[in-house]
């Protein structure tokens, strides 16, 4: 809402020197969001005067029509002689009154005017357009003034060019501030002044003679005033003051009747509508639309009406969407001049509607038809129903005054019966909400300033004013008191919460995971969760892969990505590629990224989420049912890496990132979760079929798949434009959290010496190292301290399809130094288990006294 300061002063006695910024500061304290204070005519300097065009000479030989005019500017040029002015506009004639800026003046935008030679003539000033004067963006040529102004009259004052406009963002609860009346009320309170309420008008009592209106839906329309004005002069134009106020408020002058309804809406906040009575067929009714009814609205939209739409109709059908927009079929006609007779034709009789419509109905219709109008914005946010009759009266008065009309005696008024709204509130309630002792007296005074009637002592009965539909609860009244007492005066105290339990295990794990991966050189990324079919195609997922079943958005940002991610990889790989493309990794470094975040897996059994009650706590079952409407949303962790894991440098060669780094990143996470990962070879998209590890954890005694790691499939690398050999890992972090944790039992650390035995086992290449190690562990018994694979070897001497795995076994006893034969026996048992379980053949064993040569 744009509120010109000059207009505001009409209702509030502001101190003389008060600037727009001063008023804005007061209103901000009172809770209005004043976004800007616009200074109109800043830097404007006269002389700027009314001129009368005496003669026009059309200059020829230029690319556009140029006029050389003699303009009478009275005595304002101190000679009384006509000014000679060159003008490029043609929308005026000899005898017209125009606005002339004389040499020495400065127009907005630091535009200094002087006499200068142009088009072969000396131009002593300029004839002005609205845009040049900062009056608006109207480019319809120069301003032609009504004839009644004398040449030489100061146009700065006449056109009210110097003013300040407060632009206020009105929150949805303060619909009354979408009017000068409402803003003036807040201003008056802020300055401790009386409001001159523009809605306090003498309105004649309703009678039987008014235009017939039937309200069939008093829930949708609880107030309807109709008045008729006849004998309007079609040639009557809006006076300058009216046009200027509309312009300053951000509206464009159209025609007198329309301008008047807009003006009254701005003034009182009541949207109005004027119907051309001659175009109405019979009486007006307010009802819901009938199936199949249609209406062409004023914006030209052809609307198919919904049975829920509230319409204004005459006997032939709908003539307007109630509270949203009128129809073209009853539109006020633009005045037209008959070229032959010079006679003006246009609307001469109007029916004025001032009504109050149900906010929800208006909001739905507005949303349904995608029309947001000045009227609908106001009705949605609350219009004063009691102001309807005054608004109709004000409109009638202006039509009579400015358009020469005659008000008919008939006054139609429909009002659905409802009493004043009251709220009971403990007089101490605002104090308790604020934590400040205002006292009963201050509370009552503030509520009265808002417009409430207040009765009672300790318990107050508060009747809220008709324009404050937002005041319904005691806390609403508390807010009024506290804001008027000043939010800035609230003290600052700290509550004392009871002892808390700190972070949950899940939250701790998330933090540890991030720290561990960052410590291992990974940089965290937070990617958008939006995916599309192309994302999965690039990953090479089969058509029936469950990861392709996504939660899908009705209104995605991009139609290409309507789904929510089921895996972190598309986003993280795209970020890897972005970094690579930008060269963000630096000279020869690599990229290693990680992400933790939710993925969204439809359960396939989602129910529709219902709208539960809000007047009391819904039942546990109902709440649980809402959970059934949601997909599973586990938190995953993923890493991706490419390029050099360790860079080359003066220290020597670097090392390329590979599948093993990805698997190791999974182990890094697992360590933080306190779980042991079981790693198995697997084939799973989008990984390289020979370089993919499936990662299992044991949860509740069962082995569960927790994720995958390894090198990406070369096809995927190519499809996504990734660096060669990009590797990736993804794990269900929540699953790891459930599987891990618990109290770590302290290891028994023996001080006795270690006995080391190395063994080399030859197995088929298809035998996973993890199985051999597991067999060794199983067979070695409790003397075994650790097993470490220190070499993998293939070669001709082993034979086709064989590999040799060399392990260092360390044995130690808790209570004694091991004898050589004890360690060797344990070694032999370990080897025997490996032989039995994996078909291994002992290739050699060293470090034992009886070790045979290899």
């Amino acid at each position: 809402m744009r509120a010109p300061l000059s207009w505001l002063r009409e209702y509030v006695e502001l101190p003389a020197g008060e600037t727009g910024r001063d008023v804005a500061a007061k209103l901000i304290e009172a809770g209005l969001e004043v976004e800007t204070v616009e200074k109109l005519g800043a830097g404007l300097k006269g002389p700027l005067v009314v001129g009368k065009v005496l003669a026009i000479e059309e200059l020829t030989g230029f690319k556009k029509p140029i006029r050389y005019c003699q303009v009478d500017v009275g005595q304002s040029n101190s000679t009384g002689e006509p000014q000679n002015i060159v003008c490029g506009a043609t929308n005026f004639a000899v005898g017209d009154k125009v606005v002339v800026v004389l040499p020495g003046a400065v127009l907005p935008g630091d535009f200094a005017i002087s006499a200068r030679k142009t088009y072969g003539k000396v131009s002593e000033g300029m004839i002005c357009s609205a845009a040049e004067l900062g009056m608006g963006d109207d480019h319809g040529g120069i301003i032609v003034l009504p004839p009644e102004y004398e040449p030489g009259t100061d146009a700065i004052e006449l056109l009210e060019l110097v003013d300040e406009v407060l632009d206020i963002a009105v929150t949805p609860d303060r619909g009354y501030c979408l009017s000068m009346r409402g803003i003036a009320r807040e201003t008056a309170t802020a300055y401790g002044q009386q409001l001159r309420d523009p809605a306090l008008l003498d309105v004649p009592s309703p009678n039987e003679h008014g235009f017939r209106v039937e309200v069939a839906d008093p829930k949708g329309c609880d107030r309807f005033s109709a008045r008729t004005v006849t004998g309007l002069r079609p040639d009557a134009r809006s006076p300058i003051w009216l046009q200027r106020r509309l312009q300053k408020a951000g509206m464009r002058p159209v025609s007198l009747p329309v301008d008047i309804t807009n003006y009254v809406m701005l003034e009182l906040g009541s949207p109005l509508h004027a119907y051309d009575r001659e175009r109405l067929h019979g009486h007006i009714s307010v009802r819901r639309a009938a199936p199949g009814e249609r209406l062409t609205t004023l914006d030209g939209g052809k609307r198919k009406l919904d049975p829920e739409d509230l319409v204004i109709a005459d006997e032939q059908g709908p003539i307007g969407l109630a509270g949203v927009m009128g129809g073209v079929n009853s539109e006020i006609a633009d005045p037209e001049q008959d070229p032959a007779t010079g006679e003006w034709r246009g609307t001469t009789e109007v029916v004025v509607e001032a009504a109050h419509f149900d906010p929800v109905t208006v909001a739905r219709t507005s949303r349904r038809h995608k029309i947001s109008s000045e009227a609908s914005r106001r009705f949605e946010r609350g219009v004063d129903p009691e102001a309807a009759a005054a608004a109709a009266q004000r409109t009638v008065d202006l039509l009579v005054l400015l358009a020469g009309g005659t008000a008919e005696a008939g006054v139609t008024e429909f009002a659905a019966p409802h009493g004043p709204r009251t709220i009971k509130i403990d007089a101490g309630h605002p104090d308790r909400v604020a934590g400040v002792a205002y006292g009963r007296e201050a509370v009552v005074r503030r509520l009265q300033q808002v417009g409430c009637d207040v009765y009672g002592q300790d318990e107050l009965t508060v009747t809220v004013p008709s324009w404050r539909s937002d005041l319904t609860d005691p806390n609403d009244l508390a807010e009024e008191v506290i804001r008027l007492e000043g939010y800035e005066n609230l003290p600052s105290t700290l509550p004392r919460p009871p002892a808390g339990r700190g972070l949950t295990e899940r939250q701790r794990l998330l933090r540890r995971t991030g720290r561990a991966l960052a410590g291992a050189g990974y940089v965290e990324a937070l990617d958008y969760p939006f995916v599309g079919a192309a994302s999965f195609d690039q990953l090479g997922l089969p058509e029936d892969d469950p990861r392709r079943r996504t939660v899908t958005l009705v209104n995605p940002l991009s139609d290409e990505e309507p789904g929510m991610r089921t895996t972190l990889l598309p986003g993280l790989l795209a970020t890897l590629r972005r970094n690579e493309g930008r060269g963000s990794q630096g000279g020869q470094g690599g990229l290693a990224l990680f992400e933790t975040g939710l993925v969204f897996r439809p359960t396939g059994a989602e129910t529709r989420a219902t709208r539960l009650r809000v007047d009391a706590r819904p039942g546990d079952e109902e709440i649980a049912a809402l959970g059934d409407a949601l997909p599973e949303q586990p938190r995953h962790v993923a890493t991706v890496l490419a390029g050099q894991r360790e860079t080359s440098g003066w220290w020597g060669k670097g090392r390329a990132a590979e599948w093993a780094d990805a698997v190791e990143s999974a182990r890094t996470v697992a360590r933080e979760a306190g779980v042991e990962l079981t790693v198995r070879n697997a084939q799973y998209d989008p990984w390289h079929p020979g370089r993919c590890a499936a990662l299992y954890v044991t949860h509740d005694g069962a082995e569960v798949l927790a994720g995958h790691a390894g090198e990406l499939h070369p096809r995927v690398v190519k499809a996504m434009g990734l660096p060669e050999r990009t590797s990736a890992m993804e794990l269900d972090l929540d699953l790891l959290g459930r599987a891990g944790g618990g109290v770590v039992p302290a290891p028994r650390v023996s001080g006795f010496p270690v006995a080391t035995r190395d063994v080399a086992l030859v197995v088929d290449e298809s035998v996973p190292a993890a199985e051999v190690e597991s067999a060794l562990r199983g067979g070695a018994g409790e003397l075994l301290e650790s097993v470490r694979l220190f070499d993998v070897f293939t070669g001709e001497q082993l034979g086709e399809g064989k590999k040799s795995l060399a392990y260092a076994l360390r044995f130690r006893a808790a209570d004694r130094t091991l004898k050589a034969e004890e360690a060797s026996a344990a070694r032999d048992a370990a080897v025997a288990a490996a032989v039995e379980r994996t078909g291994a053949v002992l290739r050699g064993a060293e470090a034992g006294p009886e070790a045979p040569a290899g």
Partner: protein
Amino acid sequence: MMSAPNKSYDPVEVEALKPEVIDQAKAEALAAVAAAGDLEELREVKAAHAGDRSPLALANREIGALPPHAKAEAGKRVGQARGAVGQALKQRQEELERERDERVLVEEAVDVTLPYDRMPAGARHPLTTFSERVEDIFVAMGYEVAEGPEVEAEWFNFDALNIAPDHPARTMQDTFFVKAGQGAGNGGESAGDEEGESGVVLRTHTSPVQIRTMLERRPPLYVICPGRVFRTDELDATHTPVFTQVELLAVDEGLTMADLKGTLDHMVRELFGEGVHTRLRPNYFPFTEPSAEMDMVCYRCHGASVGDPDRPCRTCSSEGWIELGGCGMVNPRVLTACGVDPEKYSGFAFGFGIERMMMFRHNVEDMRDMVEGDVRFTRPFGMEI
């Protein structure tokens, strides 16, 4: 000195034990020790002058042949000489070892200014660590961290927060709606929903976590809820459709707006330093009543830039205040919907965007930098912020 007559002296003279010979051998030995230039030479000197075949060692052997009365004197002389040589050797040995060690250290010197970017450092995203920093402020006060789903039922995101279906506030937030019929069954009752609506959205704020918390736990409740939220804004320098909010909720007996203000003041002091405080301006949110917009004093200029064109402040655009977010007393209707008795309990809540805070705390100029995951942006933030 014992003055005995010289007659008891055995005239047998042993050449090697003559005092001048001993002194001579000692002097030579000491000279050789001093002359030894390195440990190798010293080893040779040691063999020559203190070894088994050295003059002093040979002299020592002669002592046994002396008559008893002469043994003591000769033994003393030789012993002192050998002692002196041994001492000198030891000293020289230490000296030379020290010299050698120093030389080795000099030889082993390297250029410690050589760069070492062998394993580039990792880092956590500043939005993550900033959230944690805020969490930690409140966890230290006794608050707990609460979480909720990102794909959320509309009832949690809107209705329970006093945002009725046709409330204008519902259109203020541009919501991502989820399509119905994701799964096989759609058997749920729909309360006046239009056909095909799932009743599920991407949460537009972290406030539904308030609702979940109140439904799951009993007051007193003190929780902080960080998380991702979604609105249908296009990504540009100041907007992102996916961003991070932190929400706080306190529900207890007797909580006031003054408590809300004190809690906010505490937070901005912890994040921005002493002397930074907040102000509240009236505003409107359906889920709080009274509601307020919260600003904090600009932590850089502390308001000094206001009206002083010579000292403009980029952080607050010379406004002196920085807008943080929204807050207020939990609307009693929200308490009621969650089964919390508004006659007994009151609550306060606030929420703000982490991205916005990052922008003015760390001078992030472009929202996209926080979204795109460029390692050059993230790496300097390290592990904590």
